[in-house]
């Protein structure tokens, strides 16, 4: 551990993993609580006031979700979360239109649940194009244009990347998809309530939304499905025909209320929240780079959500760094903390050198992060990186002027 790091009056571990999940905002929880107990009705019950009360709450929430993305409330389908929304959007559209169209376009840096759904569609006979990304993590719009054919049913490109925070050019992508007559789906689990989104202006046909990424509860999400021009999809869950037949099952009223409330708060405070988070993000980045040489930001510097910084600390292995900063809850940019020893597929898609990919961690800031926490994190990380570099043979070799690429390493 780093000696002499003064621990200011803050609670540890410090949570800096807002891309993994966020706490429920206390204001959101207050809105939810009555719907667990006294207002427990089934929102689909039509014959008594318990049902009407619950239905009204659900419909208010639906309108709140719609409003934050510029949609109509009739276009919002509640789901269990963004994973289900992504599954429903891709499988639902592909299967509904499969007689005429059999092609899907997506991006290599999408979330696993989009990529895995695409693999599933490939097994069913669909063709999938995986667009590459440039070194900054963004797609090339000309490559997108070239990939779309008359057989393309849907294009799926995420808003904000969960690992590196870059923002894809949604408006430009939407315009291309509209012009070419294909549907545009975007996984906005990390984007809703954090960057301005407008389904009309951006020509978005389907959008996946997650509750727990924006200070709402886990277990709830939504799928925006455009009505004009109408997007049709085959339901995955059959039953009582709730959610206009697209997603059967009794709606979880308290969770719907929570998602709606989270959206309303995010919309109201987006400006001030973002300004704060940008300031914290800059404070962290400037603090780290002022203390440590050879730190690299993965993904575009400007075209990003500032609450996500994915940094490579050259010559220091990511997992050993995490082990030394136990007072910070951050995520390894590489997948080394899981059983696989492969570095992150997202960083590899960016063309980040494998050795640098092994040195990455993701730091996420959010609504409840404080300046004192940032300063503590900077001090702790900088101290630990210095310590680990002092014991890194690679750092030593580079200091001696040895080019690491000139060495014939025995890959194992």
């Amino acid at each position: 551990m780093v000696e002499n790091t003064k621990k200011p009056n803050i609670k540890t571990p410090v949570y800096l993993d807002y891309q993994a999940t966020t706490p429920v905002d206390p204001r959101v929880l207050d809105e939810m609580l009555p719907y667990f107990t006294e207002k427990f009705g089934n929102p689909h019950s039509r014959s008594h006031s318990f049902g009407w009360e619950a239905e009204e709450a659900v419909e208010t929430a639906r309108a709140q979700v719609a409003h934050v993305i510029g949609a109509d409330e009739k276009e919002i389908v509640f789901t269990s979360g963004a994973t289900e929304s992504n599954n429903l959007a891709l499988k639902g559209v592909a299967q509904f239109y499969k007689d005429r169209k059999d092609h899907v376009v997506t991006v290599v840096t999408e979330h696993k649940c989009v990529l895995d759904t695409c693999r599933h569609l490939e097994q069913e006979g669909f063709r999938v194009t995986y667009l590459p990304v440039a070194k900054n993590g963004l797609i090339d719009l000309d490559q997108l244009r070239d990939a779309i054919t008359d057989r393309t049913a849907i294009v799926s490109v995420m808003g904000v990347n969960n690992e590196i925070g870059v923002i894809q050019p949604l408006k430009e992508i939407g315009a291309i998809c509209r012009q070419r007559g294909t549907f545009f789906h975007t996984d906005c689990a990390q984007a809703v309530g954090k960057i301005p989104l407008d389904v009309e202006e951006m020509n978005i046909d389907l959008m996946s939304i997650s509750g727990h990424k924006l200070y709402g509860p886990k277990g709830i999400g939504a799928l925006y499905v455009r009505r004009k021009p109408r997007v049709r999809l085959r339901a995955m869950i059959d039953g009582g025909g709730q959610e206009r037949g697209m997603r059967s099952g009794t709606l979880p009223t308290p969770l719907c209320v929570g998602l709606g409330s989270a959206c309303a708060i995010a919309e109201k405070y987006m400006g001030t929240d973002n300004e704060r988070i940008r300031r914290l993000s800059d404070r962290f980045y400037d603090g780290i780079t002022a203390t440590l040489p050879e730190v690299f930001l993965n993904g575009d510097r400007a075209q990003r959500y500032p609450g996500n910084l994915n940094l490579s600390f050259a010559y220091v292995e990511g997992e050993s760094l995490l082990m030394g900063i136990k007072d910070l809850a951050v995520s390894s940019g590489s997948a080394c903390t899981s059983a696989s020893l492969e570095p992150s597929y997202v960083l590899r898609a960016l063309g980040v050198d494998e050795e640098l990919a092994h040195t990455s961690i993701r730091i996420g800031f959010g609504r409840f992060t404080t300046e004192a926490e940032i300063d503590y994190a900077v001090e702790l990380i900088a101290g630990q990186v210095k310590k680990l570099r002092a014991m890194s043979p690679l750092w030593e070799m580079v200091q001696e002027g040895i080019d690491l690429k000139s060495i014939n390493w025995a890959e194992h």
Partner: protein
Amino acid sequence: MAYSERVVDHYENPRNIGSLDKNAQDVGTGLVGAPACGDVMKLQIKVNEHGIIEDAKFKTFGCGSAIASSSLITEWVKGKSLDEAATIKNTQIAQHLALPPVKIHCSVLAEDAIKAAVADYRAKQGHKAG
């Protein structure tokens, strides 16, 4: 991932970090692993005129288990003859540190590193003799 107490101890208080003069005749150096794989170990031994390892130093780029494996092996080889040092098996390291299956390769790397250091020292002596 939960680390064993011994891994944490070696990670927080690594033994014998540092470097010996790699050009000295009585120093053998082993450099194993690859940056692209996420671990590189440099292990150095200083051997006295009786063929006994009297000092050992390491530097490691890698996870906590890799750091612990190399730290541990520097402790073990000190005072041993070259032949004894070369018989240390990765399984002994893995067992002592209670490494989980996905981290066994860290102990293999440490075994490779000591073998490489011994081989480097012997090559240097061979040159001198020849």
